[in-house]
């Protein structure tokens, strides 16, 4: 047993005091979010998300030749996603790095989010790769990954029906909160990551640990919708920034 390896635990500590959480946020406040698009020059699209203590790097390649060839579909592009946690990314809560039960599950759910968005039928016999590396983890890496991948796919020019934003919701000290940090995730009563498409508000991901009542889930969905709006704004600003910075650059011609 590693030190501090508690996926869900209990604590005597009070996590919410006078409506303020351990890091001073209110219950519907998200951690500072920064997104940078176009960080990997050789990738078709890329994004770096820094969300509270999380650092997530995403690179997108494709559509390109499908390997192995027998997996290729004549009906459209195959979407492949690989979520991976770096060995130095604060592992005590998550077991180990590399392919494991947890990272395979997250890879699968992220892939399914984008299978519902990407217009894949235009690119038969190809694959689209989404590579996500968590460089630093502090609770809510899967929602940070989805947020990064969405910005990276948009900047790669891969046709999509919508842009997706994601947020973790949960129950801490009996109250519904958004964007749970590591301690709230581990010692709270329940956590529920949600991914919502921006235009149609489709629920593309919804997982839950712990227990919630029907009313609490509805409350969480409502809170998630408002928070996803904030996340979406940051995503849009990040994608637009690459074009605006070209317009502002004093440097006339550069190589």
């Amino acid at each position, binding site marked *: 047993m590693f030190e501090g390896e508690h996926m869900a635990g209990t604590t005597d500590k009070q996590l919410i005091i006078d409506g303020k959480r351990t890091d001073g946020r209110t219950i519907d406040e998200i951690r500072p979010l920064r997104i940078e698009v176009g960080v990997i020059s050789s990738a078709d*699209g890329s994004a770096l998300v820094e969300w509270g203590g999380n650092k997530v790097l995403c690179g997108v390649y*494709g*559509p*390109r*030749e*499908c390997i192995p060839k027998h997996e290729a579909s*004549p009906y459209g592009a195959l979407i492949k996603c690989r979520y991976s946690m770096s060995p130095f990314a604060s592992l005590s809560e998550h077991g180990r790095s590399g392919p494991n039960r947890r990272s395979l599950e997250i890879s699968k759910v992220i892939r399914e989010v984008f299978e519902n*968005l990407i*217009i894949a039928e*235009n*690119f*038969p*016999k*190809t694959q689209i790769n989404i590579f996500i590396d968590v460089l630093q983890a502090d609770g809510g890496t899967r929602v940070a990954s989805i947020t990064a991948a969405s910005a990276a796919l*948009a*900047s*790669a*020019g*891969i*046709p*999509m*029906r*919508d*842009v997706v934003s994601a947020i973790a919701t949960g129950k801490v000290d009996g109250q519904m909160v958004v964007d749970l940090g590591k301690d709230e995730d581990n010692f709270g009563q329940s956590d529920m990551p949600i991914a919502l*498409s*921006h*235009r149609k508000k489709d629920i593309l991901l919804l997982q839950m640990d712990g227990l919630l009542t029907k009313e609490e889930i509805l409350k969480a969905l409502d809170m998630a919708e408002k928070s996803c709006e904030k996340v979406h704004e940051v*995503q*849009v600003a990040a*994608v*637009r920034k690459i*074009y605006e910075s*070209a*317009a502002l*650059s004093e440097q*006339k*011609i*550069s*190589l």
Partner: protein
Amino acid sequence: MRKIVLPGEKISDEKRFIPYTFLEGNSVYAAVLGMLDEEGRYVPLESVYRPAAEDVVVGIITDSRHSGYDIDLNMPYPGFLSSRETRADFNVGDFVMGVVRVVDEVGNVDLSDVRRLPKGEIISFPSAKIPRLIGKKSSMINMIKEKTGSDVVVGKNGYVWISENDIPLVLRVINTIMQKAHMSGLTDEISKFLDEHKIDKNSVRIGNSIEFTIQK
């Protein structure tokens, strides 16, 4: 004001066909990152090249077989030039230009009218920004050719071939167009830049900069 739109943003309530969009209900939505101007015109800024018949493309021969040649066209799958379509002999690694003859339902591309390009360099350019590199009635590309003295062939697939004459200067210009493709007044800016950096016939160009001038 021109606006950058993301996938899923509404472009028009009028039901009409616009490339790189999709229809839902009676509205048209952007499918890729693009630009929407005041008149509601939508121009994609990032996209993946989808071949169509009669496109002029630039490629590199990657394989030579009895039945024909495989040609790298900056796409997921190589294009194919049948031996029936050509009498010329190509070697692996040759730079070629050609015309897309037919594209089948799974995206296989057959080429025709393929001819070899002389020694030079091929660079890849985002295919969505190709119209900007060519310009209105080829204004941009003709100006680059004229002012640099280089020959340039722009393939719709995003490969651009540059003749050996002055590759670094053309590369600088093409890079600028890539970065500023969404801005107006680009042709004038490039024209001004090229006038400033016109090749002095007496100077020797090494790498990216003029290193010294030969005194006569």
